[in-house]
């Protein structure tokens, strides 16, 4: 694999675009300045390759014994060679041979690579393995070395060089095909097709190849650029094109011999090779980045109504009119207000895209550029969050994230990852901090904490990792624990342990807990109050004890009816909420739930309701009156 192959490998296989983007890719490429320039260059090269020999073939071959080895002059822009032939025209005429040979080598190499790369998925298993390991061995050797090897076997000369370069491309292309095929083969639609009885060959042609065609084409363009320069290299070394034929590489080699006297004859073909190589490479790069880019939703999120100014007494965490905005005017969190008191456990419930996780990140000051957080009030422990020093946040605010697999640094030992909190914020020595880490691991009931502290995250099970994450939060003196889907990745029996641990911290330390979950039953079991989020807003807030009896917002009541639990009536159909939740870029004017709401009226579609108090500790954002909602929730149509 050549240098560019390495770069490609670094970027990973070019992302597989969805089909509707396919025409879009071409358009995006041509629209980007780099893509347009390289496309024009490629067209120019092709035109030269076709017409140059016809137009200037005679002048390039004309021998002029009166002008041997001249430097550049108006008559001969790049000078003349040892037979007095004009080098400028020779460079132009050589375009055909150079490009033609490069493309020929690419086509052969790519075809051979495709065959070798897809063979394992059609061949019997053992034969596939042989092919795969052969490719793995060959790919370790640099392309140039392979090219030299094959050049020796096939002999110096044009055909030998074409085959040498083709076979030098082959292994990396076979490998690419294998990687791409494997990534597609692991997806369920292949398994589904196999279950349907689709044969191996059809599987390859109908399901695998169409899904990897795009990155293959892009990489072929890049390979053509590599082939072009590699060919120039071989010709330059004198083992490619042989006299009397000539390509850029050969002209370059001839020019280099007299670079002392005049650089132009060498630099002319060098520039030609560089420009042509760049044209292929840049076009490939532009195509790859166009394929990787997804069209962004362009609709701006309409501003949510201004929240009523709320001067009510704050708590441990006070949030008023919190917004998170991304470039393009997309606001996944649109004016959220709530309070967490000491020793209180608050649940935030919502589906994916409701803004609940982003809310958690915003109130812990972890939203990164380009996201922007604004709020009328955002205070933690009586101080504006923005003004709270890191040291204080690091010890008083604990975070627990969803996926304990990925939330620990895989290259550092668990104990050290815990200890650094105390080292950085509490000025402890390495040793004391590690001792404290062991102590905290014991506190969350991890067996053999001394040994476990010395292990890496991959040596922990999922539930244990999540407990270690909580232990990390306990390195300081947490006043607030923010847990974002802490049990989603865990099994139910483990889930219970983690929830109990959070409840215990709340009870023992009178810490506040903000528990974010998509599972309303999890929240109902553990929290004091529930905030129901939909499309970036809180639509209802009520005490957990009343959740199943007094919930009023149509979304909340529908959600409760749609999720089966162990007490659901098995003979009645589950309630269905038509449609799906909106993406942050899709929110129009009016109540975002209106398109799915059985009670929606005209006002709901034009004006967004504000979260208003219905009873003590119970707030609902809905235009319908309390009596209408009560009727709908208790006996009305669902």
């Amino acid at each position, binding site marked *: *694999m*050549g*240098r*560019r192959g*390495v770069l490609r*490998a*670094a970027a990973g296989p070019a992302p597989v675009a969805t089909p509707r983007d396919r025409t879009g890719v071409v358009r995006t490429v041509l629209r980007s300045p780099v893509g347009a320039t390289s496309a024009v260059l490629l067209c120019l090269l092709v035109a030269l390759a076709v017409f140059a020999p016809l137009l200037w073939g005679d002048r390039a071959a004309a021998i002029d014994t009166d002008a041997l080895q001249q430097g550049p002059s108006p008559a001969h822009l790049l000078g003349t060679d040892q037979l007095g032939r004009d080098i400028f025209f020779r460079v132009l005429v050589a375009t055909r041979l150079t490009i033609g040979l490069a493309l020929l080598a690419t086509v052969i190499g790519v075809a051979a690579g495709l065959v070798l790369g897809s063979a394992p998925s059609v061949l019997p298993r053992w034969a596939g393995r042989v092919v795969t390991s052969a490719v793995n061995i060959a790919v*370790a*050797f640099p392309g140039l*070395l392979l090219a*030299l*090897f094959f*050049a*020796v*076997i096939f*002999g*110096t000369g044009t055909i030998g060089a074409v085959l040498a370069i083709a076979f030098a491309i082959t292994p990396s292309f076979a490998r690419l095909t294998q990687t791409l095929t494997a990534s597609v083969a692991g997806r369920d639609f292949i398994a589904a097709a196999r279950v349907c009885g689709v044969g191996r060959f059809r599987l390859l042609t109908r399901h695998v190849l169409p899904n990897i065609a795009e990155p293959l084409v892009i990489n072929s363009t890049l390979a053509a*650029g590599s082939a072009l*320069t*590699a060919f*120039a*290299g071989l010709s*330059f*070394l*004198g*083992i490619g094109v042989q006299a009397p034929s000539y390509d850029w590489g050969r002209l*370059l080699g001839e020019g*280099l011999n007299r*670079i*002392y006297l005049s*650089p132009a004859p*060498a*630099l002319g073909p*060098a520039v030609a*090779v*560089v420009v042509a190589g*760049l044209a292929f*490479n*840049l076009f490939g790069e532009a195509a790859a980045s166009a394929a990787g880019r997804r069209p962004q939703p362009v609709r701006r999120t309409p501003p949510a109504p201004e929240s009523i100014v709320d001067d009510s007494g704050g708590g441990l965490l006070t949030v008023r009119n919190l917004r998170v905005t991304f*470039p393009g005017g997309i606001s996944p969190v649109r004016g959220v207000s709530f309070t967490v008191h000491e020793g209180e456990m608050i649940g935030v419930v919502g589906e994916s895209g409701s803004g609940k996780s982003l809310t958690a990140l915003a109130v812990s000051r972890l939203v*990164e*550029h380009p996201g922007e957080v604004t709020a009328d009030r955002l205070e933690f422990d009586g101080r504006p969050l923005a003004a709270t020093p*890191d040291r204080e946040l*690091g010890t008083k605010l604990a975070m627990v*994230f969803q*996926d304990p697999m990925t*939330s620990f*640094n*895989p*290259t*550092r030992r668990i104990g050290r990852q815990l200890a*650094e909190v105390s080292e*950085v914020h509490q000025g402890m020595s390495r040793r004391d901090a590690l001792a404290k880490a062991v102590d905290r691991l014991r506190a969350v009931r991890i067996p053999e904490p001394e040994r476990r502290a010395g*292990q*890496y995250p*991959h*040596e*922990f099970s*999922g539930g244990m990792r999540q407990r270690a*994450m909580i232990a990390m939060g306990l390195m300081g003196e947490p006043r607030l624990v923010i847990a974002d889907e802490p049990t989603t990745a865990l099994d139910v029996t483990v889930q219970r342990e983690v929830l109990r641990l959070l409840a215990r911290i709340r009870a023992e330390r009178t810490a506040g807990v903000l528990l974010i979950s998509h599972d309303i039953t999890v929240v109902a079991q553990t929290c004091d109050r529930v905030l129901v989020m939909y499309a970036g807003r809180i639509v209802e807030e009520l005490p957990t004890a009343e959740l199943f009896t007094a919930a009023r917002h149509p979304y909340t009541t529908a959600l409760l009816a749609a999720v089966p639990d162990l007490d659901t009536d098995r003979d009645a159909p589950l309630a269905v909420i038509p449609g799906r939740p909106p993406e942050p870029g899709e929110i129009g004017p009016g109540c975002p739930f209106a398109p799915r709401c059985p009670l929606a009226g005209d006002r709901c579609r034009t004006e967004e309701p504000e979260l208003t108090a219905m009873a003590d500790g119970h707030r609902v954002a809905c235009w319908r009156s309390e009596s209408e909602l009560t009727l709908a929730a208790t006996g009305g149509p669902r």
Partner: protein
Amino acid sequence: MTTAVRVRGGGTWLPFARRRAVRFLTSLWVLVTAAFLMIHLIPGDPVRESLGLSAPPEVVAARRAALGLEDPLPVQYWHYLTGLFRGELGTSLISGTPVADLIGDRLPATAQLAVLAFLVVVVVAVPVGVLMAVLTKGGRRRGAELAFTSTSVVLAAIPEFLLAVGLVGLFAVQLGAFPVAGNDAAGSWVLPVLALAIGPAAVLGRIVRVELLAVLGNDFVRTARAKRLPARLVYLRHALPNAVTATLTLGGMLLGALVAGTVLVENVFAWPGLGSTIVGSIQQKDYPAVQGIVLVYGAGVLLVNLVVDVVLALLDPRSTIREA
């Protein structure tokens, strides 16, 4: 992701070492066999090709016998293998000197060139890549990102021998700042090293940036930020070690490509190394010499890959576990 891979500390090292050793030896065997077969795959009689059509048949026959080409293939293979263990690589058809001596004579110049160039690559590319990642994180400084990306794409797309020609044209011929060829003076190292290093440095710088940005998007970096660690620690302690894995894997391939690149660059600068020798040998059809040099280059590449994998295993304990 269901069943976490649970392993006892150190328990994965032995299987890893065994697996890696098997791969290295297999690759080496394939390389040796390919080098051996190279002479036999050449259409026609290599000795006749080498000595020319005018050579008397007796001379050709004698040379064939001396090279052992009259023996059955397996016997020749056996002789080749046993010869390798004794450090014998055959005799040059042109000069008649042992190929091993030839290589011993030329290898140091090439090795020095490659190592020096690689050091330059790492010293330049890693800091630049890290800096660019930090500066352009989260879509900041679009202009700087565009400038860096396009520069690196252009530099990476120029093959090293053209870069060499350009450098010679500019610095040696026009400005006279450095010698055009040879490796006698200290100044004569500058241009060849630059010609070899610029392309890979551009690629590696880009890889470092891309990898670091990818790592910065990981959950555990968010965890580190949630611990309110200073930015310096987040980058150096948590992000960089995780970017090293991919960087090193690709860096190894880059180093392999750089080793091969010496062939071309040596020819531009008339550098007295293996690269200029192999090209001369190919042109003169001195097959034993070509065979020996290909073997040395190939073994060098395999060794680089092995070293990279071992270093990787030391840095990242997970890499010793093969994914199912």
